[in-house]
């Protein structure tokens, strides 16, 4: 009997997916939305897995000195952005090079981070955990710390069927929680569902949005998931070339991932380096500040003209993307025991 058993063990060790256990956790989103890009067959969401991921998301044990958690830079009440901080900062007050982006509707994302350095939601958490200016730890060490706690092994057993903690399980549970962060309850969504209506001002703003913004901030997710150079003047202190650092292709110079506009009212400061604190600064950039360069987005090569009234109307529409059910959903906030 020993040979077949050994064979089975070898197959398991060679990279099979871990199998979650527990009660299925169904994600809800509008039927008109596109199909998620995330492959749920490899990491089915469960009540236990999501709860574990949520606990990890809020636990500073993920950082080297146990001082900061994911929520340090991603606050639920501000659409998981880092309000008031232009650049993210990590342990020991170290400051990074980019703004901590808002987090929502991640099941529809194909790339993660401003430059798309991360190719899958499951492995996204590795980036902040290991970055010296963020959590500055190693996933192997995080696993050891979690295994040594009195409570985590039981939570992993509930989510994955055994008490042995692995990097795969840590990352997949965090991803499970993040997959639940679906924002689809804004006024815009209610209007689309036919249960609410825009004011005249919002309606005109929506018209302007579709005319000038929708090509990159595409409905219903309000991002096309692509990388674009939106004509920002280069910050010579950061000299951040964006996507081309990853692709090693000069054609990608100064391109960054197009962020969603959902909950934009709360996700300031704006842009990859958090240079704009207010929406009016953003609109001023797109109407007056776009710098022409070889990699400038094709959508911005023709100057956008908006008068003051139109800017107010467009802003009124953008505010209809605020989803307070999402922002103040107790299932997304710090898990009280």
């Amino acid at each position, binding site marked *: 009997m020993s040979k*077949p058993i050994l064979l089975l063990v070898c197959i398991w060790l*060679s990279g*099979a997916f871990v199998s979650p256990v527990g009660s299925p956790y169904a994600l809800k989103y509008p039927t008109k939305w596109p199909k998620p890009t995330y492959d749920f067959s490899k990491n089915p969401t469960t009540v236990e897995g999501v709860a574990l991921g949520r606990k990890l998301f809020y636990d500073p044990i993920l950082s080297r000195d146990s001082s900061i958690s994911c929520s340090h830079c991603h606050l639920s009440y501000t659409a998981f952005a880092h309000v008031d901080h232009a650049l993210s900062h990590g342990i020991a007050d170290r400051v990074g090079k980019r703004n901590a982006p808002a987090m929502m509707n991640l099941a529809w994302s194909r790339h993660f981070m401003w430059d798309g*350095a991360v190719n899958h939601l499951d492995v996204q958490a590795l*980036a902040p955990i290991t970055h010296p200016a963020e959590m500055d730890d190693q996933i192997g060490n995080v696993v050891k710390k979690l295994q040594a706690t009195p409570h985590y092994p039981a939570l992993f057993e509930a989510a994955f069927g055994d008490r042995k903690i692995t*990097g795969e*399980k840590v990352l997949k549970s965090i991803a499970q929680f993040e997959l639940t962060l679906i924002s689809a309850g804004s006024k815009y969504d209610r209007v689309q569902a036919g249960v609410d209506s825009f004011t005249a001002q919002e309606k005109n703003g929506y018209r302007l949005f579709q005319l000038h913004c929708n090509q990159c901030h595409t409905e219903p997710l309000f991002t096309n998931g692509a990388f674009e150079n939106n004509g920002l003047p280069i910050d010579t202190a950061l000299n951040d070339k964006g996507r081309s650092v990853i692709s090693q292709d000069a054609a990608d110079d100064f391109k960054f991932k197009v962020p969603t506009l959902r909950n934009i009212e709360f996700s300031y400061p704006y842009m990859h380096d958090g240079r704009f604190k207010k929406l009016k600064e953003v609109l001023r950039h797109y109407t007056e500040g776009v710098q022409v360069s070889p990699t400038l987005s094709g959508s911005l090569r023709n100057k956008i003209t908006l008068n003051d009234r139109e800017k107010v109307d467009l802003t009124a529409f953008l505010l209809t993307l605020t989803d307070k059910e999402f922002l103040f959903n107790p299932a997304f906030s710090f898990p009280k025991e």
Partner: protein
Amino acid sequence: MKQTMLCILACVSIFQNLAASTDSVWLSIRLSYQNRTVQLDEPSDSLLLTTARFYLSAFEFYNNNRLVHQEQTYHLIDLEQPNTCVLKFNAPGMKGVDEIRFRLGVDSLANVSGALGGALDPTLGMYWAWNSGYINVKLEGQYSKSDARNQTFEFHLGGYLPPYPTLQYIQTKANHSGDHLLLNLELSNLIQQVNWKDTHHIMSPGAEAVRLSVILASSFSLSVISP
């Protein structure tokens, strides 16, 4: 209840038959430099290797040009852990192998499949957090001609995206067949072909990572330890 018992007995019988007919091939993996076995942290002429880790995957076993076994598995070879340097493959009727084909590295599908376990668990230190993807080969140490401080080098070879995919397909044949084979990776070609004035640290995908991966791929050889 009776049916359940019969089912269990049938399963046991199948496993016993499988056990009786399953054969094994052992593959020992060795690194050499100038044809002498390399041990970690022990200087070998002008080379000191402190880390040697690499992925071997998708093995195919042949006997007299006939495919006798294949499996889509990943093995992380780590000279620091001798048990990882001996691989055992089991399959019914697999006896006598004179050729193996495999990949040096991790295929692109695994590179885009999120968090994986076993030999591919990110805790094993072979995954780039800030440029998603596996490090196929990690070689670190010192070489007398390296212009780097303390004559160090760090070659982390990986990357799956065009134009710099580093995954290598390798085919190597022994003089005759056997059940215990030695797969040797000779480092001389690599060491000779590095431009030590400019290249001592490769930590991201790129043309040089591809070039060195190709050199490594041509440096494997297969021989029989026991027939």
